[in-house]
C-alpha cells in the first residue's frame, strides 16, 4: 500500500513539469501585449514600455522565463502580479475560499444525490422514482447561470434568506447559496448514477442471500446495497471536487466569491503569466492527489480491490 502511494506520487513529478511547461508556453503565446493593455486606450512611450518589460522579464526568451519561474518555486517565490502582490499570497487568500465553497457544495450534493438516488433505486418504477427522475432531468437541462440567477432572485431578493452576494471574509452562511447552485448540476448526476448502481446491486445474489439469512432491511440496505453501489458515485464525486476546486468561474462571478475561478479568469485576461501558471500548478497537484484518494477509497468500499504493488 505504502509502496503504491509512493509510486503514484513519483508519477506526479513529470506530470507537473509537463503541465507547467505547457501552460507557461500557452500564456506566453497568447496574443497581445499585456503592457499595452495596462494603459487602456492611451499609448505609453517606448521608454516606458521597455522599462516595464524589463521589470516583468517579458523581454527574455520563453525558456528563460520558464526556468526563472521553476527556480522561483524552490525558494517559495512564485513571482508577482501586475499590482505588485506576491502570487503566493493570492494563492493563500483564494484557495481556502474555493475549498470551503467546494466542500459545502460537496456535502449538499452527496447527501441529496445519494439519498434520492437510493430512494429512487429501491422504489424502481414507483411514483417517487418518477418524480425524482423528472426532477433530476430538469436540473441537468438548466444551464448553471440560469439556476444561479433564479435562486439569487428568489432566495435573496424575494425571500431575503441569503445575502445576494458573498460578503466580507466569505463567511459560510454567504457561501451557502453559491454552494447550492454549484451542487444542483451534480446532484442530478449523482442521483442517476446512484439509482442505476443501486438497482444493479439490489438484484445481486449476495443481497438475496442477506435477506434469506433473515437480515432486516435496515441492515441490508446500508451495509450490503449502499456500500457496494458507491464506487461509481465516489469516482464521480471525486472528480467533481476536482472540478470545483479549479473554481467555478461563472458562479464565482455571479456571487462575487473571491475564489480561484474569478481570480484565474482575471489573470488570464491580463496575461499574468506567473499567476496563471501557479494557479494551474496547484490545481494539477490537487487533481493528482484527489485521484489517488479516490483509488484508495475503492479498496475501502470493495473488499475485492487490493493494491499490492
Amino acid at each position, binding site marked *: 500500500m505504502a509502496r503504491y502511494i509512493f509510486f503514484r506520487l513519483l508519477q506526479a513529478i513529470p506530470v507537473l513539469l509537463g503541465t507547467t511547461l505547457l501552460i507557461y508556453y500557452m500564456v506566453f503565446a497568447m*496574443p497581445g501585449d499585456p503592457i499595452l493593455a495596462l494603459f487602456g486606450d492611451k499609448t505609453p512611450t517606448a521608454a516606458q514600455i521597455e522599462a516595464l518589460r524589463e521589470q516583468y522579464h517579458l523581454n527574455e526568451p520563453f525558456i528563460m522565463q520558464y526556468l526563472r519561474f521553476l527556480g522561483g518555486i524552490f525558494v517559495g517565490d512564485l513571482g508577482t502580479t501586475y499590482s505588485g502582490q506576491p502570487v503566493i499570497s493570492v494563492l493563500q487568500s483564494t484557495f481556502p475560499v474555493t475549498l470551503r465553497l467546494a466542500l459545502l457544495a460537496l456535502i449538499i450534493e452527496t447527501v441529496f444525490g445519494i439519498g434520492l438516488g437510493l430512494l429512487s433505486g429501491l422504489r424502481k418504477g414507483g411514483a417517487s422514482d418518477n418524480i425524482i427522475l423528472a426532477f433530476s432531468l430538469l436540473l441537468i437541462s438548466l444551464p448553471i447561470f440560469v439556476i444561479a440567477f433564479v435562486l439569487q432572485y428568489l432566495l435573496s431578493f424575494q425571500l431575503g434568506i441569503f445575502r445576494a452576494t458573498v460578503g466580507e471574509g466569505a463567511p459560510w452562511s454567504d457561501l451557502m447559496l453559491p454552494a447550492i447552485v454549484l451542487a444542483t448540476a451534480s446532484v442530478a448526476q449523482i442521483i442517476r448514477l446512484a439509482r442505476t448502481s443501486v438497482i444493479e446491486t439490489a438484484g445481486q445474489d449476495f443481497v438475496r442471500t442477506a435477506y434469506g439469512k433473515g437480515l432486516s432491511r435496515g441492515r441490508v440496505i446500508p451495509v450490503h446495497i449502499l456500500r457496494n453501489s458507491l464506487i461509481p458515485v465516489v469516482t464521480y464525486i471525486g472528480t467533481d471536487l476536482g472540478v470545483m476546486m479549479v473554481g467555478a468561474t461563472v458562479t464565482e462571478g455571479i456571487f462575487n466569491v473571491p475564489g480561484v475561478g474569478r481570480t484565474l479568469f482575471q489573470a488570464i485576461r491580463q496575461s499574468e503569466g506567473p499567476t496563471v501558471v501557479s494557479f494551474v500548478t496547484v490545481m494539477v497537484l490537487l487533481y493528482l492527489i484527489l485521484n489517488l484518494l479516490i483509488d484508495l477509497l475503492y479498496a475501502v468500499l470493495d473488499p475485492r480491490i487490493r493494491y499490492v504493488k
Partner: protein
Amino acid sequence: MKLNRFGVGAIALAASGALVLSGCSTNGGDNAGSGDNSGKAIITANGSEPENGLVPTNTNETGGGRIINSLFTGLVSYDAKGAPQLDVAKSITTEDSQHFTVVLNDDREFSNGEKVTAKSFVDAWNWAAQVSSKQNNQSFFEDIEGFNAEADSELTGLKVVSDTEFTITLNQPVSDFELRLGYSAYVPLPEGAIKDAAAFGEHPIGNGPYKLAGDKAWTHKENIKLVKNEKYKGPREAKNDGLTIVFYSDPTAAYADLRSNNLDVLDQIPSSDLAKFQDDLGKRAINQPAAIFQSFTIPERLEHFSGEEGKLRRAAISQAINRPQITKTIFSETRTPAHDFTSPVIPGYSADVEGSDVVNFNADKAKELWAQADAIKPWSGTFQIAYNADGGHQSWVDAVTNQLKNVLGIDASGAPVPVFSAFRQEVTSGNIQTAFRTGWQGDYPGLYNFLAPLYATGASSNDGKYSNPEVDALLKDGLAATNIDDANKKFQAAQTILFTDLPAIPLWYSTVNGGFSDKVDNVVFSWNSQPIYEGITKK
C-alpha cells in the same frame, strides 16, 4: 406540488446546515465590517482591484483611481461640474501661463501628521517624471521645463522657494495648466514614499478626505476600507465616517447587492439590466453624461482613404451612420450621439461647433459624397472596423457596418480581435489594415485633453497617425492664450478643421449609469463619472 415541497425542504435543511457550520467556523466568521462600525456612517461602493499598487503617479485606471482620489488631494480639486477649486494651494498665480507661483495653505498635513510642504510636491513630481521610476502617468509632467521622455533628467522648472511656496516653469505657455493640477498625478507624496514605492503602494499615506482604516485595510481582490481623515481641511471634507470599496469582477453581482441594499453606491449597471434599471431604481437611478468620447478611426494609409478621396469617403461614412437610432436601440439611451470630439461635461463644450453637421445622419448626402469619391477612384474591397471582442463592442460595430452597407451599398463588416491587449498591439503597431475602434476618457475637464493627445502630430495616442499643421497651430495657440475662454475658442476652431478631415469618426458619448441604495442621500456623480464619495450622507 411534491416537487415544490422537496425544494423548500432542501433549502431549509441547507440553511440550517449553514447556521451550524458558521457557528463553528474559525476563519470565516470575521464580520468586522458590521460589528466594529455600528453607529458609524460607512458608505459602501463598488470598485475593482487596482491594477497597480496605490501610487498616484502610477494609477491610470478607474479601479485604483477612485481610491487614489479619496486618499489624496492636489493643489486644486474639481467640483462636481469639473471646475477647479483651490485645495492645498492658497493661490496659484501666473502672468503668462508659463511661469507659475504656487502658495500653499500652511495647515495641511498627511494622515500620518507630516506637514504638506512645497517639497512634498516638487519631490514627488520630479521622481515621477523620471524614466527609471516607471510611472504610468509620467507624461503628465512633459510640459515642465527639464522633462525628457527618453532618459532620466531633473525637472529644472520646479523650484522650492519656502516650505509653503514653489514655482513652476513650463516649456511653453499652457493655458489650462491650473485645470490639469486637479488630476491625481499631481498630488503630493510624503517623505519616504518614493524610496520604496512598492511598499508605499500597499500602505499609501495621503492628504485627502480619507485614509486607510489601518494596516489591514486592503484585502486584496475583496475590498479596501477607508475612514475619514480628520486631518484633512479643505473643500472635500467627508460628510460620512468612512468608505468601503468592494471589488466586483462582474457588474451583475454588484447590481444584485445594490438592489438588496448590501451596497450603497454603484456606478456601473450590467448591460443586461440597462434597459430596465431606471424602472427598478426609480429616483435612485443615475444616468448622466460622462467624459468619455467614442469613435472609430480610419487611418490615412488605408487604400481609398488618403487625400481628397479619403476626405470625401470619411464624410460619407460619417453621414451614413444614424447615431440616434443606435444609441436608442442598442444602448437603451445609455449613450448620447456625439456632436463633437470632446464631451458635454467638459466646460467649454458646444454642440454646434462649425462643421459639426457632418455627424448628422444624411443618407442622400452620404451617397452623393461616396459617388464623388468613386469618380476619383472607384471603390473596391470591404470596409472593416476592428474591435476587441472582449469589450462588448460587437453589437454597435455590427449596427454601424450594417448601416454603411445599406446606405452606401458597399460590403462592410466588423473585424474582431480576441482580446484587448492584442487589439491595442495591432493598433499601436501602425500596421492595422482596417478602421478601428477608438475612445478617450478625459483625465481632466478640459477640451485640450480630448484633442491634443489624439490629433496633434506625433501625439502619444494619435493612433491614426493624423497630422495637420493647422490643427497643431491652433492647439498651440490655444495653449498660449492667457485665459481659458480665448483658449477654448482656438480649440473649437481646431475642431472645425477636424470635422472636415475626420481623423476619427465621432460616434457617441458614454453616460454613467448607476444608482444608490435607499440608505444614503446626497449622491452626486462628478464630471469624471465617479460618485463624489465624500459628499454622501447616510440616512
